[in-house]
């Protein structure tokens, strides 16, 4: 199940996806993804990914 971060975005406009947003970073591919992951701290916090890195 997707975690509910508690963010309320009632007025999100699907017609204007900001390139600088999370999805925009994913669209940039490896560079964007690594930057996003680093910023979010997933790599540091997630056991699964950390294990694979070893």
């Amino acid at each position: 199940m997707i975690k509910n971060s508690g963010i309320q975005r009632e007025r999100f406009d699907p017609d204007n996806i900001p390139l600088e947003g999370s999805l925009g970073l994913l669209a940039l591919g490896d560079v964007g993804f690594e930057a996003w992951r680093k910023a979010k701290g997933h790599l540091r916090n997630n056991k699964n990914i950390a294990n694979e890195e070893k």
Partner: protein
Amino acid sequence: MKKNKLLLIGWDAADWDIIWPLVAQGKMPALASMIKRGIHGNISTMTPPYSPMLWTSVATGKTPDKHGILGFIEVTQDGQSVRPVTTLSRKTRALWNIFHNQGLKSNWVGWWPSFPVEPINGCVVSDRFQKTHVDPMVKTPVSPKSIHPWEMVKELGPLRMFPFEITQAHLFPFVPQAHKVDQEKHKGLHAIGKIVSENSSLHNAATRLLRTSEWDFMAIYYDMIDHFCHSFMKYHPPKHPGVEQSNYDLFKDAVNGAYIFQDMMLERTLQLIDKDTTVIVMSDHGFESGDKRILNMPKVQAAPSLEHRQFGMFVACGPNIKENEKIYGLGLIDIGPTILHHYGLPIGRDMDGQVNLDIFKQPGEVLYIDSWDDMPGDFAEIDKKQQTDVLSDAQTMEQLVELGYVERLDEKFEVAIRNTRIDLKHNLARVHLGKKDLTTAKTILLELLEEPKAKDYAPFLMDLIIIATKEKDFESALTHLEAVKSSGTEVSYNLDLTEAQIRSEMGRPKEALVLIERLLEKDQTGPVYYRYGLLHYELGNFEMAIEAFEKAIEKESQIAVYHAAMAEVLLQLDQHEEAAEYALTSVELVKFFPKGHLLLGQALEKLGDLENAEIAYEMAAKLKPRDFHRADYSLENIKEKRDIDYTLENKASHKYYENQIVVVSGLPRSGTSMMMQMLDKGGVDILQDELREADISNPKGYYEFEPVKALYKDNSWLEKARNMGVKIVAPLLRYLDGQYRYKVIFMNRDIYEVIQSQQKMLGKDNEVFPVHLYNQFQRLLKSVTSWQKVEPGVEILYINHRDVIQDPETVARQVAEFVGQPMDVEAMATVVDPELYRNKFASQ
């Protein structure tokens, strides 16, 4: 830097019907820029439209019966288990093997199937790379055989995104009110998390390779659009009446969101290549977005593919690609050979596809070899006997189950293995059916009917109905139909439509019409309206036919046969300009559509545009096989038309054609036997068997040939009729084989007289005039006029029965001129016995 590079991007299930509105709104700028710089058009898919089969056809230029990938799953080599389909099932060399052999470096990302990887010159990130577990606590390391070279795992492995990493910020573009979704009740967000993370993993690997490696060819495959469509197309606007308003409100933006995100990824990809690289973006099939959306998926194998549409999308741009043009007639099977040609490599003669030269500015000469499979040398192939770890396939299997492509495996593996074997065999039959190899398809399907424990026999029977109808074996078609009805199948086939098709082909349009009218009360879809229109056309109700075809086109605007049918009716009504427009649309949709080109030629010919009519006929004649002769005759006619004084109504050239068949036709009792006798006396050899003896109604004999009566189901005997005369009653004329040239002498007699004569012959009461028969005969005569108009191999001469009696010599001369060969006119005239005619009428 490498030269002549080509980047192939696969967008599974992408469809112009969704793309064009987004492009118009500026929401797919990357694709729009490619369209502007290059070519775009429809790409036609193959049957059955299952993605692993299709993408392997792209990579091999061969149909699935030759390349061996026949479905989503396969039975393992030891026969002990099943698993998602792998490269081990492929039995021919793919482009990557050929590139390897030819010293070209190629990268392949996500290609379906490319696991286990083959050790080629380049890099393979297989379709297994991105599959991970949804549970953060379960480790799913990169499978050893999912990346080549394996050393790349250190760099590419960390680029995999896990579903649990997806946040609300990722979901909002697809589901703006994601926080309102009750995830216990609807698994939509879960699906998006999985799709987006997997496609991001592949995109990450692809962009890394684009940035850091040298390559000659690169392919990237994304399944995002397909998976979004399977989960959310039912919620796409306009609202389907069968979906809940609350779900519609939540998920209506999901499909558009997927296309927009895909375009954002394309934009990045295009940033990472140089301007001299040729780029192709294509899908393997389209996706139904209108009335044909399916809410309750039937429980048949690969059921979701029922939502796949015949046409996918194709866009290409590059130094040698034409600019700002729409391209017609692309076929998925042609992509592999066309890519080989781009590199100046030869095409295997054993490939089913052809090079599409139309896309190139400088097409060059196509080179051929017998087969790449026979070439000696290093093709980086793997030992197909090696086993893969079944457990490593669990994630893919789970996804296929979730998407509905395969059923959850039975605990008893032998059941799963049997079902898989049967499904793959059925797929093979459908491949042969798609290739119009009816004999092979039928053999396989009949074998499947003998399977003792198949889940459902109805799918086999439905395919057998198609074959039996095409072979005009209507008895078998109806038997199979009854078997489907009593099979207890869970699939809700449209059996009324099927039965209407059979009865229509049997020459029983009224029975078919009753079924269709009943069906229309509950099912107003394109195919039903199309059939409704065809039946009205057959019955001569042209206005009704037009109305029905208009509705069919309104429901589904991209079906070529609907447009062609409309063109055919409009031609009958002498609305040639409109007919030309519809015919043109039909060939724009499907270039390899001989009938569409033929109709276009006919419409242009009527408009007096002989030059373009000739081009259209030439195209139709080039395309085989069925309408070849009709187009050929049209071409011959148009060339003659330029030389001689010709009137549009006149279909009698007075020219003798080698192997022509002289047909005497008309309503029964309109003087056909008399005309046969004239031909006989005139020196034309007559095809007859003399089974029916002369009697009081025809004292000089009937001149009949027994097989004529069964012409509707067997016209193979027509070969014997070449250079001969044969009597065929009017209702059977439309079953004549288009491959021959016919000179039809049609006997016209007052219908009132005809009916009176028939009634007398049958000993019926002449006092009661059968009005229905009168109307029916009138319609029949009208349909003959329509038929001969559109049949270029048919010339027709109408002879009035009364003229024969009153002036037999003039008529005999007319007939001799029409037949185009020397005839004994005097002897012909002696046949007529005016006394007999007068006596007959005196006694009535």
